[in-house]
């Protein structure tokens, strides 16, 4: 075989996918506390506001980190979101939404498999489908750019940037986790 790193890359790709698919399953099965356990202490979870611009000004399409966003959460805020759902008065999620996450096009953008403690940057596409009650239906598609960090032999999510394919959010809220 001409490519000595191929096997390592294959293993890394596999490990990364396993993590993302498992995470999606945790969220789809509403195991939110377990999900918090998949995050690092310093997680940054961010979804910018997107705008329609001309091609010439497309650098203004997304708001910048540190500015206005739909999500701009640290661990404390994500815990608050989860606690809300668990305490039973978060009407947006009680009765609970039905969600299904499809994670595709997973690509390791940077990072390596070998060194312990290393970070891996992973891009993926997602579809998050949600229905509520009898007639609410939302479908969100987008791209995520995650930083996964190796902790105790497994991955933890250290950063998630979420880029949605909408400018006006066409749903009544964003009470789901992406």
């Amino acid at each position, binding site marked *: 075989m001409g490519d000595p790193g191929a096997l390592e890359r294959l293993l890394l790709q596999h490990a990364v996918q396993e993590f993302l698919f498992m995470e999606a399953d945790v969220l789809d099965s509403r195991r939110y506390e377990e999900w918090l356990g998949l995050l690092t202490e310093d997680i940054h979870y961010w979804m910018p506001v997107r705008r329609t611009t001309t091609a010439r000004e497309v650098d203004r399409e997304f708001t910048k980190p540190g500015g206005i966003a*739909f999500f701009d959460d640290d661990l404390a805020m994500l815990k608050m979101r989860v606690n809300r759902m668990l305490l039973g008065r978060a009407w947006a999620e009680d009765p609970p939404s039905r969600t299904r996450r499809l994670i595709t096009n997973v690509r390791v953008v940077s990072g390596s498999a070998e060194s312990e403690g290393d970070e891996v940057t992973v891009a993926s596409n997602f579809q998050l489908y949600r229905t509520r009650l009898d007639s609410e239906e939302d479908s969100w598609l987008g791209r995520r750019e995650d930083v996964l960090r190796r902790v105790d032999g497994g991955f933890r999510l250290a950063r998630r940037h979420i880029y949605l394919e909408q400018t006006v959010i066409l749903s009544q*809220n964003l009470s789901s986790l992406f």
Partner: protein
Amino acid sequence: MAAVMDRDYYDVETGVLDRTIYADEDIYREELAKIFGRAWNFMCHESQVPEPGDFFLNWIGEDQVIVVRGRDRVIRVLLNTCPHRGNTVCRAELGNTQRFLCSYHGWNFHLDGTLAGMPGEEVFYRGNLDKSAWGLKQAAQVDSYHGFVFATLDPTAPPLPDYLGWVGRLGLDFMASQGELEFLDGVQKNRIRCNWKIAVDNLFDWYHVKVSHGSVLQVGLFDEASLAPMEQMVLLGEFGHGIGGPGISEEKFDEAVARVRGGPGAREWYDRTVRDRMQPEATELLGPVGRRSFGHPNIFPNLWVSTSPQVCLRIPRGPGETELWWFSFQPKEASDNHKRRNVYMANHWFGPGGILEQDDSENWSHATRGARGRFSRTLPSNLTMGKGADRVAEDPSGQARIETVVNEHGQRWTYRSWQEWMRAESWQELMANHSMPPTGTV
């Protein structure tokens, strides 16, 4: 045409409301003309379009408009529809441009809306088209108050300061009292399946807070004293403007600062806002009564002013759909820490992902659904809370107000005014027939 307003939809005597107004297509069409077509509508903040050529798209009812700063630095509001055959001439929601070029046949327009030229001006039109008559249609009047730009399509509307009156102005004075504001890039927009009036009346609604937003009390983002205080103050203004929400009495200012607890940002914000209001300058700007109000202003018809400091438009998209647009600001001179806090609040309280707001939309959409059923729509909505139980207190400053507990004065005033707007055939008629804010028992 058969009058849409053929009966009392809001009964001033009893305080009950006909739910039809949340579902009826004809009433909605009439609102676009009689309310949005006549009112001063919020467009944007001046700092959103600082340079010549900067533009921002917004709506007046279902008419899209371009807010643009001209080479002469004047801000104009142009209807975003090509005079040739109706196409949209500006399709980016914000940006900077030299001209607006219609992508259909190429008519192009200067920043002031005048027609600059088109392909075939000599060869096809044979030089016969009077360009001065075929520019983009302009809003009849554009003006701003504390940097907040408004426009009306009605040339007979009263000037903006008169339209706002002291209550509408006070609502925006709350913003100005935080210092010179600059816009934070990024308007959070989302669409809710509710009638726009439900989203408007909710901003006066301090009854829903403990229930609808019960979860944020449970997780400690806010404590009950700051999220749902007992003492309330309502100020009502001509043409439907109002302010409703917490009102702190003179003696309790210190206590109010001290008792606030809550999650990150909340305490500091409340602390600072209340302390600012204790300063003499605040009294000068807001008046002796106004400075004690921490309520929510609505600039009629659809602009909620929040001291966060943010403003939120409720834009109609048919009788059963509304878009919420959150514009966020920060004081220009604030410390970095203060600015970070501002962004933190804007990103976590309101907007579709906001921990406070996400529980609102389902209630609003189902309240709208409750107006659609053949039988459920015949049931009245109850807006009677506190009716006949409170008094308007006059003040030498002219700042009349109601000081009481949680109530529905603001909502009743909104629907009563709505009905007057809908009945009037013109601004002249509205001026002659609208109710003055109540005095005595309310």
